[in-house]
């Protein structure tokens, strides 16, 4: 369980997070909000990259102020928005091995974790490729594998589908779903409301450094999203017109319409 208690944070005296309370466990939690609302800043508190100016963050009972990022990286994995910002090795295998090696694991354990992590994101067989030569979706999944190899319980994904085409996006979505089934808690930062509708179990809406909403997906989509600069998914608009109520996927809508 990650517990955020009245968290305040300021960059150089400018307060960006203004009193946030949040509990996050084994679930897919979507973190949404306009540009500059503080999503990334909040996420960086969960693995200790930033420390609260006031309030505190507890990761399975560990206060982030008393632990280093390296210690917390065993619990919370953070996948940054731009995967290229972390690639530096010649091969995919070495790239994924970097994290487990930092944990001080022996070679056989490192190898086992790399194979497992690559398998989990569907990149088995890519071991000898060069990270920079992969496609957009593959790069994103490799970034996830690099973090996954640390075996964290919680995963933070900062806009994992931005800039990907439909097929690549699907591959990342499938990866997220299977990670959830394996028991990971996933914090998904995104601007894509379709993705929220499809994946999220709970939604937190940030506005101006404060929580404007925290609750189930259906209730979230009954908010006046446009006033927060967010777009209603086409699927919901269509479902409403057809009088089908709240649905989460095209298949569900089709099923209701047939009835």
């Amino acid at each position, binding site marked *: 369980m990650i517990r955020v208690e009245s968290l305040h944070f300021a960059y150089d005296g400018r307060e960006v997070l203004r009193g946030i309370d949040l509990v996050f466990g084994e679930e897919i939690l979507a973190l949404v909000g306009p540009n500059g609302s503080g999503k990334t800043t909040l996420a960086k508190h969960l693995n200790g990259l930033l420390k609260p100016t006031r309030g505190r963050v507890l990761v399975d009972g560990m206060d982030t102020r008393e632990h280093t990022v*390296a210690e917390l*990286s065993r619990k919370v*994995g953070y996948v940054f928005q731009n995967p290229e910002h*972390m690639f530096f090795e010649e091969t995919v295998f070495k790239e994924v091995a970097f994290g487990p090696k930092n944990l001080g694991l022996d070679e056989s354990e490192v190898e086992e974790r790399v194979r497992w992590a690559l398998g989990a994101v569907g990149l088995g067989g890519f071991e000898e490729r060069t990270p920079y030569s992969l496609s957009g979706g593959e790069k994103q999944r490799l970034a996830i594998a690099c973090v996954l190899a640390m075996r964290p319980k919680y995963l933070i994904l900062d806009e994992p589908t931005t800039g990907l085409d439909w097929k690549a996006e699907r591959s990342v979505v499938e990866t997220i779903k299977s990670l959830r089934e394996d028991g990971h808690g996933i914090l998904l930062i995104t601007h894509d409301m379709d993705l929220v509708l499809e994946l999220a179990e709970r939604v937190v809406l940030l506005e101006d450094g404060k929580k404007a909403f925290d609750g189930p997906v259906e209730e979230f989509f009954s908010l006046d999203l446009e006033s927060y600069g967010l777009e209603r998914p086409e699927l919901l608009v269509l479902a409403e017109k057809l009088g089908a109520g709240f649905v989460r996927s095209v298949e569900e809508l089709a099923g209701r319409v047939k009835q």
Partner: protein
Amino acid sequence: MIYQFYVERDSLLHSLDPRVKIIGMLIGITSLMLFNDPKALIPLFLFILLSGRVLGKLGIGEQLRLLKPLLFIVLLTVLIWPLVYKPRLIGLLLGVSFSLRLLGFGLITFQLLMTTRQRELILGFVRLGLPYELGLTLTIALRYIPTLYGIASTIMDAQRSRGLELDRGNLLERIRKTVPILIPLIVASLKTAHELSIALESRAFGASRRRTFYRDISMKRRDYLALGILLTCFASLFYLRFVLGFGHVVIYR
């Protein structure tokens, strides 16, 4: 994150002709090189800092904050001088004064960047006789320092999240640990440079030989006056250093 150095203020330094400020920067840097005695360098550094405050309306903290990236080198300088130079106390003093020089160079450069818009800076360089391409290259390079700084800190965050501990281990290990930071940074820089060159060419950069400027600059009375004051100060410092022999200690005998 700082994405640009320029800060909008209504001050004397902001309104001066960029040529005067560029010459001022060169004079400042040369002056710092004249002296190696803390006795002279400490007042000089404080004087530069204060002129930024008074003439440029730049906060003291605001100016010093930009010098933070230099802190590591400064620390190294202050530590190493007393180790290699005897008597050690003089070594320490020399370490301090060389650091002050370095910080002074940084400070003057940042003051120029904080008080001058990019297009004025290019114009200043060009009107001082530099080819436009060179002026543009120079200002683009300066413009990208904060951007690269931002990318570098994102990369550091990303690698720290993978368990990289930058502040552990001996010197050699620490140097090795910069590889995961430097490679993504170089790749990102090359990509940015490549994209920038495409952007420049797609706007027909270099199509005509003689460039004209929509906005031009001209020296006013105030600018000549400022230039006069600068040159007078420079001459006095020269006098102080070479005629009166102040502010210089012999290091190598």
